[in-house]
């Protein structure tokens, strides 16, 4: 079972995000970066499939700057076999990234192509399905469980109020949602081994997509908070304000 996993380095979900002075980027000072959480489910799934099959290769790919090397090493430490860094300046447009990944993946043999369901920086949720179309492959997004039998995948994907059962023939694309598995932490042995695993680097020129960044701003300010009172006695006053001040009841 051969898998390719596409991953991304993103600010940690607990990071405070401030827009930089240029109004076009975020201020990286004090921001801790980590592998995108959903990508960890994708890597874990690929490793478990390889382990269950008893053979195969797990290749991780990312598009990003030099600092993304660290994220690839983290994936190798979890148990991936080799890594590719496509060095490029990444924008908020998913299409150029999808094209670069598709170009790299085309021609590589694999059974499963995995992604996290969403990168928690641009929140686009678009690259997995875009790549599947660019490569002409079946695809299931937001996957919480996956069975594979005789080259056929049965995935359950999260939808409003339930799950869709999605079936397709391999090779195919999966975008992993929390719940798919329990990602492992890299062991010390894994971290040592990762240093010797192959990490290929190449510069790629991203072709501009159709979206141009006009600017970034912070979130709109919330109204001044009001403490209505303490304990259950404050409830009638709360209900009054919800009815009369903001009219939501």
């Amino acid at each position, binding site marked *: 079972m051969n898998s390719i996993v596409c991953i991304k380095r993103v600010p940690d*979900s607990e990071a405070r995000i401030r827009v930089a002075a240029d109004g076009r980027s975020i201020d990286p000072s004090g921001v801790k970066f980590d592998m995108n*959480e959903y990508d960890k489910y994708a890597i874990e799934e690929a490793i478990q499939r390889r382990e269950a099959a008893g053979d195969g290769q797990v290749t991780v790919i990312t598009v990003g700057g030099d600092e993304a090397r660290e994220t690839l090493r983290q994936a190798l430490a979890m148990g991936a076999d080799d890594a590719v860094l496509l060095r490029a300046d990444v924008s908020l447009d998913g299409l150029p990234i999808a094209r670069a990944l598709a170009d790299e993946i085309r021609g590589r043999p694999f059974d499963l192509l995995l992604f996290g369901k969403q990168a928690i920086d641009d929140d686009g949720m678009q690259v997995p399905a875009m790549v599947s179309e660019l490569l002409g492959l079946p695809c299931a997004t937001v996957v919480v469980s996956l069975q594979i039998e005789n080259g056929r995948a049965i995935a359950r994907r999260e939808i409003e109020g339930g799950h869709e059962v999605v079936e397709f023939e391999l090779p195919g694309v999966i975008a992993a949602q929390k719940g798919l598995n329990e990602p492992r932490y890299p062991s010390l042995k894994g971290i040592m081994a990762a240093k010797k695993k192959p990490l290929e680097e190449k510069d790629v020129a991203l072709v501009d997509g159709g979206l141009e960044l006009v600017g970034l701003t*912070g979130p709109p300010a919330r109204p001044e908070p009001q403490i209505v009172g303490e304990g259950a006695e404050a409830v009638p006053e709360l209900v009054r304000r919800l009815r009369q001040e903001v009219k*939501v009841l």
Partner: protein
Amino acid sequence: MADVIAYAEMRDGTLRPVARETVSAARVLADELGGNVVAVALGGPGSADAARELAGYGADRILTAENEAFANYDPDSAVRAIESIAGDMSPVAIVFPASAQGKDLSARVAGRLDRSLASEVTEFDVEDGSIVVTRPVYAGKAYARLRFRETPALISLRPNVFPVVKKQGAGVAEALDLEPGEVRTRVSGIEGGSRERLDVREADVVVAGGRGMQAPEHWKMLDDLVDALGPQATLGASRAVVDAGWRPHGEQVGQTGKVVSPSLYFAIGISGAIQHLAGMQTANVIVAVNKDPEAPIFSVANYGIVGDAFEVVPRLTEEIRTLRDSGG
């Protein structure tokens, strides 16, 4: 022509609520651009009739494909349909709901047409003839304004943000010549589908519980509050209680769960980690109940009650029931 295609999402041959939002928003965009709204609806038996309703939200043409095979989402056929319609009429924009289905489909269409997609858009405008959108990034810790420099502009709209507006369109209904073709990805069924509660992203009122609820069996109390608030209300949860296995992941609100924008959000026993605040701070009105007066949740709440959820919530449920019973 400056036409706008609106993808009208259906399930089981009926329109999903987001379909009305999508068509209403497409109407606004088409009016700014001086074009028509073309609604596309694929569904099972009864769907073509059901889709006619979209004329009342501004659809000028309603293109339907009714087939048993489309009762479930059929991504390959839907992509093919939109590709073919877009090829025939060169639309300025194709608008989708940012629902589970809409996000999946919009990204596939973007890949197929090799066009960029702006996801989870919360505002749009036309400036100097080009479409400019605003969308949250970093789960709403920042907002990006983006300009489309080519057409069609592919846009998915965040649910619950754009109003449903009654406005009569020409409403010409046409059946698409679309047979189920080569299917790479087959949706063979829907499971669970407990429709008793709305999805947390589509509900108008969310009652979210956190670690302050102390144990999963205490959710009955929140359930009762949701029931009192009515059918537009649903349950949400903090990451801590989902990670603890008390609540399903589908309910998780936050940067690594769902980002929600209801009219009213109750945060019960949720302290307010940054990643949670990111997921709910676009709610119109936020009410926080927490024992700790220093809890960060109070900094984003319109109204706060400092106190024990086990005392405050039952009282709140009672007050709201009384209000409902008196016809308020």
